[in-house]
């Protein structure tokens, strides 16, 4: 195998890495922003919840390649517009997060919610100050799954020419450069691992109470 490909193409690899991160992580952020109010809606009424969970569940089963090919038609944009990947991955992220955040909100003990109401929280303030923080551990777990799976889903976009590290696979195959393909695979794995560890660390930093050891209960 000819390793000299790597030093000769460092600039391009760096550029694709940055692009890959953007394409994978921007949808995680957008997905979270969309999923939070939807999850809140889901806890308001059984019917809304059933509809939301069913629809997002169905969305998750649409094959990623099909979504990336279809979206330009729906959005009226060119197939090579990066927005295409961003929207597709945002949809997956929302589908993944709505259910778990809704479950986490439902798991907030009734006594805690009742106490917050009795203290004089308005419903919106209570959601932000009490229910949402208590849903953070589950939400972070969902974000980690979404971020890692987006890392690999971005490579699908490369099949239709949308860039990211997947471009190293397609290019490497076409021009038969094993070092290029291997670089792509290793970088995707390393990025996924780094992002996962980073999210884990952020999650722990913002939920100190989950690590407070339980004392004697009388």
């Amino acid at each position, binding site marked *: 195998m000819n390793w000299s490909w790597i030093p000769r193409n460092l600039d391009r690899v760096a550029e694709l890495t940055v692009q890959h991160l953007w394409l994978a992580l921007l949808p995680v952020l957008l997905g979270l922003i969309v999923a939070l109010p939807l999850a809140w809606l889901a806890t308001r009424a059984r019917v809304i919840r059933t509809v939301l969970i069913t629809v997002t569940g169905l969305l998750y089963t649409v094959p990623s390649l099909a979504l990336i090919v279809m979206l330009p038609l729906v959005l009226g944009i060119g197939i090579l517009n990066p927005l295409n990947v961003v929207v597709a991955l945002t949809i997956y992220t929302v589908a993944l997060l709505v259910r778990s955040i809704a479950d986490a909100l439902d798991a907030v003990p009734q006594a*805690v919610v*009742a106490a917050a109401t009795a203290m*004089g929280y308005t419903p919106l303030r209570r959601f932000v100050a009490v229910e949402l923080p208590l849903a953070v551990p589950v939400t972070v777990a969902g974000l980690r799954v979404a971020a890692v799976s987006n890392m690999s889903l971005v490579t699908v976009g490369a099949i239709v020419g949308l860039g990211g590290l997947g471009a190293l696979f397609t290019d490497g195959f076409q021009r038969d450069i094993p070092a290029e393909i291997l670089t792509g695979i290793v970088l995707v794995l390393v990025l996924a691992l780094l992002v996962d560890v980073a999210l884990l660390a952020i999650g722990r930093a913002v939920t100190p109470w989950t690590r407070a050891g339980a004392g004697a209960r*009388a």
Partner: protein
Amino acid sequence: MIEFRGVTKRFPDGTVAVDELDLTVTDGGITVFVGPSGCGKTTSLRMINRMIEPSGGTIEIDGTDVMSGDAAHLRRGIGYVIQQAGLFPHRTILDNIATVPMLLGWSRAKARSRAGELMEIVGLAPEMAKRYPSQLSGGQQQRVGVARALAADPPILLMDEPFSAVDPVVRESLQDELLRLQAELSKTIVFVTHDIDEAVKLGDKVAVFRTGGVLAQYDEPGHLLARPADDFVDGFVGRDRGYRGLGFLSADGLPLGALETVRLGSPAPSGDWTLVVDDADRPQGWLAGRDRTDGAPVTAEHLVPGGSLYDVTSGSLRSALDAALSSPSGRGVAVDADGRVVGSIGADDVLAALATARAAA
């Protein structure tokens, strides 16, 4: 003053939880709602701070209908201690207690310093401030719950079975502490429990509910025990109510009999039963006639353990009678506030005093 006028709560499924409730909660005392599970106590309590809205009738606090203003604003002015504490798991103890002051817009520093004061008032060690609720025992969590409810100094405190989830020993000490706090703070407290013993212990007035949300009797605890309004209340008040009722009759003026005592280490006198005391005249136990030491000094080995003591400064007829019944000699030991023996009491004297109290009532 909290006034229920013809208050009814019918839930959407048709359950009538509270039926035509008329009741006045007076200021500065503990009013207890008691009754079997499902009789509408929690529903009645939660209608005071609008966590549940009545379907008929009105509830007024100091003449203002609770339904007239903003619900969140109303609730910030009413302390609420929930069953199972309901502390916020993600906030430290200090920040849990600072909740309502923060909602009222106090600065964080002022709210936290107030929270620190409250920790001291309810008997929580300062090092608990930085802990999270999961690191506290059930009894400590309830103290935090009480501190949190008191933080903004609301005139009214609602408490829903606050002590029912802790073990009997801790419960007893939490009850005593509530009484001590109340003696200092004089809040208007509405306290819900299913435990009649807790109700008569804590209540200045007790409202007994029957299933279906109907008020069966609203009375002072002594009256409740002495004169239950009907068979339901009689059955609910439970066994031994005659004896427990003695707890609400003052033993003032109960005649004390003489009592022969001997110091530990002194030669024992002759006679049937002699009370042995220490150098400060505090009772140590009894010396039985058959164990007479024939002039040798009395030592701890000779002693028969004594019964309960009757404190003449604060005792009730119940404590006087119990002192007599539990004493091996048949004569109860009366002590003063410092625990010094001042005389003896017989069961006959208590019964005579009871007859006098009845005749006077």
